[in-house]
């Protein structure tokens, strides 16, 4: 995997349904994402952005094509191996936060550490640190419904980052947030990207948010329409 990019997609297609109702959510995309990049997926609703992101995150399996993550062909892996890839290298941030509603912020952030087999005490320490890092040190015992949208999303980011992933995948992370909160969350993501060298792929509708990244990949009808550097982004890949 010497000079292979972190992610490498060739002719990836994802079809839903059959016959007349066939939907080509992805219709053959090629994409290389080098280590340390910060990409934004943009495009109209239904153009395949989420499908592409879920494919990158091994949450979904392509119908055709090749996807190599860290040099490993993912399309032929079973559910367990894909889960192991997620466990060891990936973090997710969703538009709807996807926190466990009845667990506290701390418990939510501890969750991935439990599956990595860490002792309870170490889970606690690392989760508290992660909450501290996203500016929620004082909210660790609040449940999601006691937190604002921006705070919930920061808990989700802490949960994604607590395991120090190689790849952070965010599907419209600011989609449910007001502008001010959105900017805060984006600043947090940018800082984590810069400080920790995490590769970030993000789906967004908003040019303002995409501007935080280095590269914009534009989707239309399941294909990549354009792949351009963000003007003024320092050190674009």
């Amino acid at each position, binding site marked *: 995997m010497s000079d292979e990019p972190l992610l490498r997609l060739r002719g990836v297609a994802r079809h839903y349904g059959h016959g007349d109702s066939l939907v080509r959510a992805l219709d053959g995309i090629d994409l290389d994402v080098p280590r340390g990049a910060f990409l934004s997926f943009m495009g109209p609703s239904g153009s395949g952005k989420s499908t592409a992101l879920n494919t990158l995150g091994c*949450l*979904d399996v392509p119908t055709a094509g090749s996807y190599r993550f860290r040099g490993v062909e993912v399309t032929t892996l079973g559910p367990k191996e894909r889960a192991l890839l997620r466990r060891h290298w990936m973090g997710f941030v969703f538009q709807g936060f*996807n926190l466990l509603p009845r667990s506290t912020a701390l418990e939510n952030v501890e969750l*991935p550490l439990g*599956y990595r087999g860490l002792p309870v005490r170490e889970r606690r320490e690392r989760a508290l640190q992660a909450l501290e890092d996203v500016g929620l040190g004082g909210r660790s015992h609040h449940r999601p419904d006691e937190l604002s949208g921006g705070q919930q999303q920061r808990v989700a980011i802490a*949960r994604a980052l607590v395991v120090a992933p190689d790849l952070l995948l965010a599907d419209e992370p600011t989609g449910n947030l007001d502008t001010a909160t959105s900017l805060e969350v984006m600043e947090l993501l940018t800082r984590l990207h810069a400080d920790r060298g995490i590769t970030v792929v993000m789906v967004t509708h908003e040019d303002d948010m995409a501007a935080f990244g280095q590269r914009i990949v534009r989707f239309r009808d399941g294909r990549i329409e354009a792949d351009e550097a963000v003007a003024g982004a320092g050190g674009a890949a």
Partner: protein
Amino acid sequence: MRLWLDALRLAITQLARNASRTALTSLGVLIGVAAVIAMVGLGQGATAAIEQDLSSLGVNLLFVEAGVRRGPRASLPAEPLDLADADAIGRQVRHVEAVAPVVAAEAQAAFGGRTWDTGLQGTTAAWLGVLGRELAAGRVFTDAEDRGGAPVCVLGPTVVEEVLGTADPLGAELRLGALTCTVIGVLTPEGENTFGMDQDDLVLLPIRAVQRRVVGSTAVSQILVSADDPEHMSAVARDVDALMRQRRHVTSDSAVDFSVRDTRELAEMLGSITTVLTTFLAAVAGVSLLVGGIGIMNIMLVSVTERTREIGIRLAVGALPSDVRLQFLVEAAVLAVFGGVLGVIVGIGGTAIGATVLEVPVVVDPRIVLLSVGFSAMVGVVFGWWPASRAARMEPMEALRHL
């Protein structure tokens, strides 16, 4: 290990959150386990009670009867025993201490306007010694009264109480159907046996009096034989058997038309009946345990569907399908074991109450308790398997899209 502890902690949290659902679901297992424990406990208590009863009869007692028993009640018709058989046993078999022929009949006892339905035992004076009964007052029949079938009788305390009341029993003229007899003795009270039969509700008469004046035949229903020493029991039984074969002209084993039984054999026979009964009831109770398991499966399926999104989240943050399966399996097992442990408590309580009502000793077999708890854990795992596998097979993306 940590994986299991996590799953256990998670299961307990989850079940505590849905307290009423947890309670209702484990109720099925609770009832099943409680029923199994109570049934087996009462069955064993009844067996123990029967054994106690029979051992109080004495270990050196044989019962000779005509006919071949095919069960507790059914017996094939056969030439009845008679007094000559009893005589022969007494004279020809070594190590016999006493022989008491018995013929039983029902009759209404009447005295001074009061009546009472009771059982007549036509027998000899040897009856007392053979069964270990004693006289509270008076005397037993003399040899002459025995042989002559004199109209004299010895009463059980229940009959005295019901018919004679406060009148002095000794010397009273008691009417027994067509027969009038003079009361010459009263037995000491013995109480009820395991089957609730009052052992004091009887009238002893010389056997010939009952044969001639009540049943109208020379048949003897049973011959009680006691050995001079418990060690001689098997020899006595063997010799009685041989003598009876000879007297009844039995030439092959299949033609044997009488039985010689000792108390241990009786205990075994009755014990095997209660064992069959207990097994049957426990099987019925076991079915309710299975129904409890189906309840668990049902609720686990509901739970898996409700928590689809949670499963998606867990898969996204690093759970393996096997972690998800473990989580739900442990939850089902905890649910079942919770019901099982409560079931053990309720079952032991039920056994205690039932044993008091039925007047049998309380017997709780620790093996049954362990078995029930283990079995309920197994029920949880077996019936939790399908729901847990369904959870584990979920595609993460589809699960996350679930609302």
